[in-house]
């Protein structure tokens, strides 16, 4: 039952990010190895989402570099990141509420389509064949996520837990090598969390995806991740296996507080 963890795929070095005088991240370094589940945890405002946004190319850090598969960048560009095989899901769901589940997941295939907008709109040239091919992949994802019953339901009508699943589906549609999950279990009930955990483990296992996730539920984090980075006030205060992190004095005081 052991899984094979490979070389470093993503290496973050000395990242600092400031918004005016606010230091969101200060000198953060950590790496992600191929095939692992890497969690980023920390109290509210610790800079977890900012960290993802730097990797994702949404924010440009003032200092530091990010190395992805041997290529080093001082800042990332979102499109470039996506093309390199990094997909993400969002903390506050950024789905197209009025569109069906299929269409939402299809948007994740967009980067892989070769026909242009005009061809797609008029269904000419290779557009139709291409759509069929991509739809096949989307159906596999729908099957994987067990949302067959909601294929044609507008996403806005689905319960929150299912919307989260669609969000994951759209990210998976990119066939990413690295998947960034921003609080995939926020706001879910126990059962939905269990389902989501299973999907994350299966994605990691069956699709061979490397996963970086931000999560608040410590039970989940300790259960499914291979290594954990702990941030507090934009600084890294811990890094290691769940066991190591759990026993780290600084982490305990950040979470439970200390007497001064």
């Amino acid at each position, binding site marked *: *039952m052991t899984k094979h963890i490979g070389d470093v795929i993503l290496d973050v070095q000395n990242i600092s990010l400031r918004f005016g005088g606010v230091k969101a991240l200060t000198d953060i370094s950590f790496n992600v190895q191929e095939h692992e589940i890497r969690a980023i945890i920390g109290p509210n405002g610790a800079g977890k989402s900012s960290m993802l946004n730097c990797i994702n190319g949404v924010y440009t850090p003032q200092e530091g570099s990010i190395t992805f598969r041997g290529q080093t960048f001082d800042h990332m560009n979102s499109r470039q990141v996506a093309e390199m095989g990094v997909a993400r899901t969002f903390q506050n769901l950024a789905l197209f509420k009025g569109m069906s589940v299929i269409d939402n997941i299809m948007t994740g295939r967009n980067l892989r389509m070769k026909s242009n907008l005009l061809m797609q709109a008029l269904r000419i040239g290779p557009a139709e064949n291409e759509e069929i091919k991509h739809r096949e992949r989307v*159906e596999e994802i729908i*099957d994987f996520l067990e949302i*067959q*019953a909601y294929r044609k339901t507008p996403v806005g009508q689905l319960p929150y837990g299912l919307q989260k699943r669609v969000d994951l589906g759209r990210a998976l549609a990119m066939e990413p090598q690295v998947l960034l999950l921003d609080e995939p279990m926020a706001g879910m009930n126990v059962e939905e969390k269990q389902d989501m955990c299973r999907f994350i483990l299966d994605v990691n296992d069956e699709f061979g995806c490397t996963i970086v996730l931000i999560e608040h539920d410590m039970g989940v984090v300790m259960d499914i991740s291979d290594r954990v980075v702990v941030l507090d006030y934009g600084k890294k205060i811990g890094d290691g296996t769940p066991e190591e992190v759990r026993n780290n004095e600084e982490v305990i005081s950040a979470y439970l507080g200390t007497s001064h």
Partner: protein
Amino acid sequence: MQTTFPQLLLAHATQRPTAPAMREKEYGIWQTISWQDMATMVTHMACGLHQAGLKRGEHMIVVGSNRPRLYATMLAAQSLGAIPVPLYQDAVAAECVFPMTNAEVRLCVVEDQEQVDKMLEVRETYTALAHIYYDDPRGLRKYDEPGLGSVDELLAAGAVFAKQHPNFFKEQVDMGKQDDVAAMFFTSGTTGNPKGVVHTHSTLIDRAQAGAEFDHLTSNEDVLAYLPPAWIGQNIFSYAQWLVAGYVVNCPESAATVTIDLKEIGPTYYFAPPRVFEGMLTSVSIRMEDASSLKRNMYKYFMRLAKKVGPKRMDGESIGLFNSLMYGLGNLLVYGPLRNNLGFSRVRVAYTAGEAIGPDLFTFYRSIGVNLKQLYGSTETAVFVCLQPDNQARADTVGVPCRGVEIKVADNGEILVKSPGLLKGYYKNPEATAEVLTADGWYHTSDAGFLDSHGHLKIIDRVKDVGRIKGGSNDGAMFAPKYVENKLKFFPHIKEVVAYGDQREKVCVMINIDFDAVGNWAERRNLPYAGYTDLAQKPEVYELIKECVEQVNADLAEDELLAGSQVSRYLVLHKELDADDGELTRTNKVRRGFIAEKYQPLVDALYGGLTTQFIETVVKFEDGRTGSVSATLQISDAKTFAPVKAAA
């Protein structure tokens, strides 16, 4: 006809190789499997199972929902002269141990990871289980338990073997005889261990044919297979009759998509227990209440008309020109779209059985033009005993005996059946067999009932459950618990009822509200509630239920025989009765005795005249963990009526 199921398969594959045999929805598209494909799959499967060591006469387990490859597995086992034993996919591991030990199973084919996990759990106690094959490999990649393999591997190995031994499969099929055992079905049983009902090819095929002749089924029918294949009803409809009539069986994508798939397929031959029809009607009613007033009024108007003339029309009686025209208009505006929405546009024959169906529910479907009928039968009779002819469907009878069936009512009111479809016996249980199957060839159904003046069979209750009121004003009156329970259950707000009264001076009931229906009802009245337990104990809900109980009492008062069964006291339970807690059987029938023991304080309170009672109950969750629910329940009295003497 001298034949077996595998021989029927080969006949279809030879005569109409390209005709569709099954469809399975996968990746959003209905994938067709032709008879030729099916025969090839079965050949490879049989060869694979042969190599895995499956012997003639040996039992093997099949567990899962309706999947073509699981049906192929049953055919493959029968081809080799082995006996497939389908088990319920939602049974927990402990429930599977007995059947598997009883049948000495070494090999099983299951659907997915969930079932594999269950079989591995079974193997901890029943170590003889050597091989477990799974259809869907999802989540199983990292399993390395001994004896675990995929159906894909089995088929691939079988294909190689079939190539090396091209005549093997045909020879094996030819060796099959119609009196060989074809399958074994475990009946859930309200008490004790389940019993394995043994059927031969001839009993199943004969009954499948009798049913097919009765309704003139052809190879053009479309059937949706969505009930557990371990239940003989589903087995007859999507296996025995499938092979006999050669129609198309459609397998839905998953349990959650059944309603969508039903709409897409539009079956011509449909079967469902009453609860499914009830669920559909409930969802229609709820949605109509939310519809715009124009639609709602149109629906109300035409449903009133349908109720008045629809059933007559179905029975082929004249309804007059005006009514015909109005019904036609209604068909265009309401009935047609409604049938389409329910997936019944093409239904030619629809059956319901297993439980009594409410008259309102039954009439609803017939009035909108769905040819819904009832049938009577059981696992032991290979289903078909009585069926209702197209134009003689009644809510309170179960039809006339079909071809080959003789019916006799014993002195104690028990219905006795003689038919070519009777079981061969209970597996390794001669005592139980002797109890139901007497030397003179009659099968004792243990149902109490009678044939009415039109020759239709009417069922009252189980013979052993029919009791007597003892003491009080109704001393000695007949008490038919199920009859009372069913009457109450016909109200949409009531989901489950348990009635007590045998050897007691009055009848008391415990009621489960229907959470959807009552929840909706409460929302409409701005009645806040925190959950099931809270809603169940609302005084308003008690009033609602009281109306139902008193309505039933008024009905019962009109029936001289059963007037003594009127309900004096009732309470609404704080939790839903559940098969996982042992309160219902796997086919969702209440286990009265078990419930009486488990809720002893409540029964005592009902008869002790108390008005409230505290109860704490242990509940079992689907994953095997337990928790507890507690509540203080109200107990309420209901008005009873003096028996109405039938007017001379």
